[in-house]
């Protein structure tokens, strides 16, 4: 059975282009032009599916600039019941709403204009993480010579154990659990240091620099621990 995608996008040109491109990749695409239509489709498609508790779609692509409001409503409705991945499409780089949505549980974001290749990569990662809200967390991360054993609290790079401080490890582990996805500053600070540290971005800068110093060949041009400026960090997708 092909994977089902709900595309909420009000611009006709982009909607048609994305639908065609995704269809070629083998996705079944439902399109909506407004929040309202999107919500409606979400509940109707669900009715078609056999299992009542099962969500009707496997992934939602959500544009932020919709005619009848922000995407927050859909995200809230979706997050209340399901773990369907939500990828946000945003028109502007410095869009505060985008970060809010990520903090509220959106899986990833793309800034317009983007290429189909980028979109497909983000969708792949989001789909792989599908269900992590319900399922047991990731326990092992492996990619390009780097192994992170989240249970044994061990990090091995090219066969050599890397010594990390407890905070460094927690930070890396948090990124590894969402590997391939962007994790916002706020989420990282909250999960690693605690709720009272969410404004202390300078802690993140320092510890990310330390981690890069230990895990990157050239910390000035990182290949694993990527920076999403103004948003957060992303550990590259694990090799399958």
């Amino acid at each position: 059975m092909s994977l089902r995608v709900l595309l909420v996008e009000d611009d006709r040109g982009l909607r048609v282009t994305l639908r065609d491109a995704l269809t070629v990749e083998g996705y079944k695409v439902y399109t909506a032009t407004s929040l309202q239509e999107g919500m409606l489709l979400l509940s109707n498609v669900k009715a078609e599916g056999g299992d009542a508790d099962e969500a009707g779609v496997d992934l939602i692509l959500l544009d932020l600039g919709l005619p009848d409001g922000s995407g927050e409503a859909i995200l809230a409705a979706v997050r209340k019941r399901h773990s369907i991945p939500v990828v946000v499409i945003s028109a502007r780089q410095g869009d505060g709403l985008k970060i809010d949505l990520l903090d509220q549980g959106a899986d990833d974001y793309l800034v317009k204009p983007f290429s189909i290749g980028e979109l497909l990569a983000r969708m792949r990662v989001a789909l792989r993480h599908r269900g992590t809200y319900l399922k047991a967390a990731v326990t092992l991360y492996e990619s390009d010579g780097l192994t992170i054993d989240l249970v044994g609290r061990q990090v091995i790079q090219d066969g050599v154990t890397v010594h990390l401080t407890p905070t460094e490890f927690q930070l890396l582990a948090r990124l590894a659990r969402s590997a391939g996805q962007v994790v916002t500053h706020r989420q990282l600070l909250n999960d690693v240091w605690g709720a009272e540290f969410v404004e202390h971005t300078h802690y993140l800068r320092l510890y990310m620099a330390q981690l890069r110093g230990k895990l990157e060949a050239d910390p000035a041009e990182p290949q694993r621990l990527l920076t999403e400026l103004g948003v957060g960090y992303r550990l590259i997708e694990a090799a399958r």
Partner: protein
Amino acid sequence: MIWLDPKVDLANLALVLILGSAVATLWLPAAISVAASAASVFVFNWMFVSPRGHLNVEVHQDALLLISLLLVTWIIAALMAVQRATSDRAREHARQAEQLRDFGEALRDSPDPLDHAELLQQALSDLARGDIMILIVKAEMPQADDIEAALLLGRPGSDQLEGLWHCVRTGKPLGPGTGRYSALPDWYFPMRGREATLGAALVGRGLTRLNSEGSVQAGLRSQAQALCDQFGLAMERAMTARAAARARDLAQTQNVRNAMLAAISHDYRTPLATIMGAASSLAEQGARLDDERRERLARTIMEESTQLSRLTDNMLQLARLYAPGMRLVLDWESAEEVVGAILRRVRRHDPQRRVRAILEPGLPLARCDALLLSQMLDNLVDNALKYSGPSLPVEITVRRQNANIVFAVSDRGMGVHPDWRERIFEAFQRGVAAQAPDAVPADARAAQRGAGVGLTVCRAIARAHGGELSYQPREGGGSIFEFRLPEVEPPLVARESARSGVP
């Protein structure tokens, strides 16, 4: 004196009496000390001048003594009174001068004197303990007496309100002793600027020191007027400053708008024409093109779209940066991370890895807006790649110098003609280059073309951060664009002990 009586003669006793009354006048008010000295002279007569116990005087000499005694003590009392009044006045003047100075300083430190209307009220109530009410015209003088157009402190009655408005409109003080409407129960003082009267203050009579007579009252009145005028001048200054800022904003908005129109009419057309050509070729000749050509056309569309996207970002950013009240999203950013993110983006168009990053170790965190900084570096690197030969290196360096974090992008291109080293930052100069191409050297034209508003945005970003972006020719050929960002001391981070590591 009774004790001294048997020991000294009458003349010396009289001297002691004079001493006593002189000392008393130091503290007693003039009238009381005059009365007291008269009384003491009578008592002296009664007790010490023969015949004792009688007011009669036996010897003429003693009569002369008593009269002199009386006159001398009176003269002392009068002198003391005059002296005391003079020093009181001097003290009052000093106090008033100090009050004016304090008030003036408070006003000078504030961008909007309206915030300090209460201060004026306070200062006036120091002078007089009656009701103080203040009416200040906010911006423009209304046609009718419209209370909406004014700031009002206190609760004046309708007569009082009318008096305040009248005072504002005439710019002259009213009330007792001012020569205008002397029958009014209150005083009204206008707040006069150089050109207009911008408000008025009412000082209620009540239990005021202004009730005191004559010169003292006139002094207090002129002090109240001085305070009001000082306030009026400050208001006028603030209004002039606001008007100037508005005019500046307007001119800037106009400039930005012109730059944008120029950019849209020029910079957008080239990539759009390329996209149009490639896309229509794909649509109309698609079947007849081989795979390689089709892919090349598609790639052209992608590249030109990227260029258009950058242009749009710059244009939006320019409008945002020049908009009044723009605020940066400042955070603690790592130069290494920002440069790393730029490199990652650049590599897509830089397969030969021409761009190199050199970062001084131990750089402090930068207080900046990461997205803006990256937009600036992105523009600079893009320009450097475009305007230097296809195999020449481009360097991003970050170093510390004189309490600045210096971001520099350097290339080995042809550099910028000396005449154009400042003008390349001015989007508004583009029109000149476009209209009179012969007047502009070819290399400058090249640097201008395509850069669009890019360098203007870069400089606007630099300045929004309190820094500066400047051009320098590079030794051995090429350009260096340097952004100096003032260092800010970052907050401390509680370090964990290195010992407790993960094994």
